[in-house]
């Protein structure tokens, strides 16, 4: 449901990037998505396509790479990616790290031509 907000943030970022690389144009953006990100890639792609239609970013492809979620220790603040919920912090040994609060969708790369 909130994929359109995320697509809008991505569109804003891509618009900032465009003049930096001109005269080259953005062809694709590669995103890292973890299974706990609460995002549907197809809905995000749909929103991005709708927002970029009839703009210089029309036709930019979104590609998704699956990555493990990031957990943060509530005692020492250490952050680490784990495929499954870890039982303790690998830094300080405190029990039961929690999924990181921040956004878990990252831009990994983009292709320009």
């Amino acid at each position, binding site marked *: 449901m909130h994929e359109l907000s995320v697509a809008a943030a991505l569109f804003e*970022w891509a618009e900032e990037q465009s003049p930096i690389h001109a005269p080259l144009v953005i062809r694709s953006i590669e995103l890292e998505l973890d299974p706990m990100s609460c995002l549907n890639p197809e809905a995000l792609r749909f929103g991005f396509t709708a927002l970029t239609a009839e703009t210089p970013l029309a036709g930019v492809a979104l590609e998704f790479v699956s990555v493990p979620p990031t957990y943060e220790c509530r005692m020492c603040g250490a952050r680490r990616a784990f495929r499954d919920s870890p039982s303790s912090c690998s830094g300080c040994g405190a029990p039961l790290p929690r999924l990181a609060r921040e956004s878990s969708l990252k831009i990994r790369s*983009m292709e320009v031509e």
Partner: protein
Amino acid sequence: MITKITFENKVLSKNDRIAADVRRHLTARGIVAVNLIGSPGSGKTSLVESTAAWCHGRVAVAALTGDQATRHDADRIERSGIPAIQITTGNECHLNAQRILDCVALDELWDIELLLIENVGNLICPAAYDLGEAAKVAILSVPEGDDKPLKYPGLFQRADLMVVSKIDLLGSSDFDADRAEANAREVAPHIEVVRLSCRTGEGLEGWTRWLARQLALTAPLTAQPA
């Protein structure tokens, strides 16, 4: 020729930056913010009302309440004797950090110790947005079913506490509170759990003990407001 440029960035980094600003503001003023997330009808507003009653004479509290439309919830909460600000989100299905930042300097929130943020009723999208809160609370009501932590792990994995609400309705469905708790711990081993009914008052002391602990954990960093 196609050139690949790599980044270490985040799509929602703008929200994360604003959330960090909110957290700095609140921490400097000694305000504990709790983000209440649950389905529509899970009992978020009732929990705010019950909390207002407990806070009376003890803790200075205010509420921000998010809905797509109307100010019904803010009106309800104000009748319980605390300041309430309605955030109307229109087509947005969640609150974001900017919405909170827009409110933190308002007079109603100036001299408070506890800020209850009642998010838009939704188990998915609000979980993805850091609001700068001290803790996230997932609210699961008895009529919703005890399997929701397994179905919507993103929220429970980010929450510090799960409130099982409307326990006065236990026995009227197949909801098993022990199973709900086990399901939550299966996806989020760290999570604390309290069971309560705002209607009968049963179990509210578990919630207020948890709140008191959060309040004790946060002390002002400076004497000056940020």
